[in-house]
């Protein structure tokens, strides 16, 4: 792994403990209620770019937080069911996703530079340090 294959994204402090996992990236938005089958952790909206893919144990990297206030509860439910993502990264998130992540104890970050949706590919290995507002990206895709 050469130095130029590593990349660091920086932004405001996020929420949660440091964590590392594989990235699952989409330029679509994400709603934990309307896009996801919560019993399996698989994206269930046919029109979604990640339709049919599982986010279980992945760092979900997407553009925006979509949809309703159900996300406030839903992430907690996913953690208990074992169908939760490892962490969430948004270009810019709405409050409900943060409220849900704090309730569930899932790390969440946003407003990073460079743009995570452009800079990260599905399959890359990510190390998140939310308290420092940093993500290390290791290319594996």
């Amino acid at each position, binding site marked *: 792994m050469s130095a130029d294959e590593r990349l660091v994204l920086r932004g405001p*402090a*996020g929420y949660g403990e440091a964590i590392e996992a594989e990235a699952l990236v989409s330029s679509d938005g994400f709603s934990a209620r309307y896009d*996801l089958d919560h019993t399996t952790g698989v994206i269930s*909206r046919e029109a979604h770019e990640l339709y049919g893919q599982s986010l279980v144990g992945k760092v979900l990297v997407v553009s925006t937080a979509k949809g309703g*206030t159900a996300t406030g509860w839903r992430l*907690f*439910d996913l953690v*208990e069911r074992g169908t939760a993502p490892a962490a969430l990264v948004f270009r810019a*998130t709405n409050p409900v996703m943060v409220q849900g992540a704090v*309730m569930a104890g899932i790390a969440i970050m946003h407003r990073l530079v460079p743009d995570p949706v452009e800079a990260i590919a599905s399959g890359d290995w990510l190390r998140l340090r939310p308290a420092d507002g940093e993500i290390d990206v290791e290319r594996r895709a």
Partner: protein
Amino acid sequence: MLAGAAGPAARWGIEYQRSVGEFFGAERMVAVRSAHIHCDGEALGEPGAAFLEDWARRGARLAIPMTMDPRSTDPGRAREIGQDDAIVAEEARIVGALTAMGAIPSNTCINYQTLDVPHLGERLAWGDTGTVIWANSVAGARSNFEGGPAALAAALTGRVAEYGFHLDEHRRGTVLVEVEDQPRCLTDWGALGALVGRAYPDYWEVPVLTGLERNPAPDELKHLGAALASYGSQAMFHMIGVTPEARSVEDAFGGEPPERRMSVPPGALAGLYESFLPERGAPDLVVFGTPQLSLLEFRRIAEGLAGRSVRTTVFLTTSAQVRAGADDYGYTELARAAGAVVLTGVCFYLMTARELARTRGFRTLLTDSAKLANTVQGYGYNPVLRPTDECVEIAVRGRFAA
């Protein structure tokens, strides 16, 4: 509160709110008048219900009034609808726990039209995106989207972290929307919201609508807002000359010229309807009421059905407050006599829609709600959007084609 003097529940609440507030750089906490909580069994699941029961058992009491959003079932009708007994039991646990803490079991998403009407400048902690966008836009009150745990935390502490739509800087318009395709019916307003929400799907976007030839009715504003929030995750809009923080374009943009513009050209609304195509010649069900029907909406549908018979499954969903009026004035009987099913305290997409698709074979769903047409797609439905009166005619015919 952090020291625990107000009890363990308020301490949990304030610590939770501090974590969320820090994420958004909030500098202080501010008092809120009321909370509204999204708390249906389908969203909470077992861990959410257990969490609420735990606090209720430990004697948690709310500091301010809190109303409750619709439920996943109308308990007395669950079997007839085809729902599992398990959801009835889980719902009873949630309602029991929240009511023990002092919440009002209102089971409504139109609290702003009935029992908690907000006004200019007051601060709220509301969940259900449709209620928040109404409060911010039409009333000029101030609330972020508060998810279930966040609304509960606010009700326990009586305050919220001051960020987002509590601050003037986030309430200003971000994009000017020039409407050249005039909405003509209730569903058209939802379609307009869908177009603008889809174009700018971001909580922090505040569209400013101009070019409208008619001051919309409250139910039309309700469908516009619900669709903006559903398709765009937006929490606020301005409409020049209609909403209180938009006396002029300049007012809506805080004195700055608009940086971005969007046009809704002639034919755009028809195009939105055409994006929802039926897969078959007949709908499996017709659903009215997302958000729940107001009395005026209910009456229009009931009168359309009067003296006729529906040839498919038809649901009307509303609140107990509207239902009481509809019963008194005879509208419920008109709908029932035609074979429609009137459900109280629920909203279709919260009603274990995925399970109903399996047990009842529901797939093609006809509705006059742009919001419902969006949300049911996540549950594997084939939604079809048509104006209210057309939905009534199709329900009676049992087929799309005349």
